[in-house]
């Protein structure tokens, strides 16, 4: 396996341009969590002409809703949710300066095109290893939409969070690249 690249947020267009589908990355720095309802609210704010509750410039969003933190831990288990549900909102966020996305699963062609145009990146995080991934989170702060509970926007400090580049700025897609023609299966 290729050696993992160590990256630090904030991600820039230049950093994203250097990433290629299939690159394994250990990401450190700050990311924010947001999933379905938070995305809807952010887009509603942008469409109204209001400032979203967090600036998206250079930001990286982790599509995740953690379990509650037990006493003596900064966070419970945390891992990616399926990114495709955010596709309808994503181009708006990328236009507003979003650079990185962390999730799991396929993105729409509109999102892939927007990633290309805005020099951003979509990382895959492993699903179903949330106890392990929680060990990469060193601090958590509530930022917005606290009423959403697990779906609220939180700022996470992460260290060496294991990721893989799924969609790069040249339009490549890891999930498509690994599929084998399956006409013979029927």
């Amino acid at each position: 396996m290729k050696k993992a690249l160590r990256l630090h947020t904030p991600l820039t267009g230049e950093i994203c341009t250097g990433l290629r589908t299939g690159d394994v990355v250990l990401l450190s720095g700050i990311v924010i969590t947001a999933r379905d309802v938070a995305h809807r609210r952010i887009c509603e704010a942008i469409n109204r002409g209001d400032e979203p509750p967090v600036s998206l410039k250079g930001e990286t969003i982790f599509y995740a809703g953690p379990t509650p933190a037990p006493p003596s831990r900064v966070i419970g288990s945390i891992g990616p949710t399926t990114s495709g549900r955010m596709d309808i909102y994503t181009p708006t966020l990328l236009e507003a300066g979003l650079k990185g996305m962390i999730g799991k699963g396929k993105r729409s062609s509109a999102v892939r095109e927007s990633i290309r145009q805005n020099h951003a990146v979509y990382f895959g995080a492993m699903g179903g290893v949330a106890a392990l991934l929680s060990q990469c989170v060193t601090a958590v702060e509530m930022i917005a939409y606290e009423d959403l509970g697990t779906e609220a926007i939180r700022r996470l400090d992460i260290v060496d969070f294991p990721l893989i580049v799924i969609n790069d700025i040249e339009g490549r897609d890891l999930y498509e690249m690994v599929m084998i023609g399956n006409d013979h299966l029927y």
Partner: protein
Amino acid sequence: MRKISVNVITETVRDLFLETSRILGDDVIGALAEARVSEESELGRWVLEKIIENIEVARNESLPLCQDTGLAVLFVQVGQDVHLTGGNLNDSIDQGVREAYRDGYLRKSVCDPLSRENTGDNTPAVIHTEIVEGDRIRIVAMPKGGGSENMSTVKMLTPSDGVEGIIKQVIETVRQAGPNPCPPTIVGVGIGGTMETSAILAKKALARTLGSPNGNDPRLAALESTLLNKINTLGIGPQGYGGATTALAVHVEMMPCHIASLPVAVNIQCHVARHKEAVI
């Protein structure tokens, strides 16, 4: 008539969800360990190693295996010679779910479908009750994650579609799902009955011990093996990063259907295949 207090049901349900959200069955752990050895894709092996590491961390640190601690699905078989005292069955189950998700720091993932407002305590549970012979209660608790559930399908095939049609639907469902349901998955297939029974059969199939082929009908055991081989040549692999381990098992359950119909349901379960049973 055997009297059973509903408090015992609440306690049992609570304990089942608390344990299964943190500790995976030996059958699933065994299948993952085998896949780690046989998987030829480097990225696939990387994923499988992390999955096995996660199982250890969850157990040692008493953390949920996955942040999606699921919607609480239960299969409950109530012996017809049981008399419940002190309350009713559904309320006592919901109370057990409520306590487990509160005391175990599990995520509350249930909401109103339209307003999307969270119910706050992970209830109501989805409860499938069956009245059976005897004076015991058998409870299977299965926290079901949303990502894999979303990739599931039900289709009303026609009799002329036959076994080929069934195979096509299963393979097409898994292919379309790709990386989304967190492969390696377990694929539950329900054939026959009516629309809703096919789906329930598919879900029941997920509760079966891995590596135990359908013991009721040799045709189904053969179909399970055919489907597993085909699925694992799709190339999806662990997490969709490529490889031969797309599914750990395919379980098929079947019942007779109408002469006009061939209902087929495919219920996908991620590798965090949590289910645990207790008999009261």
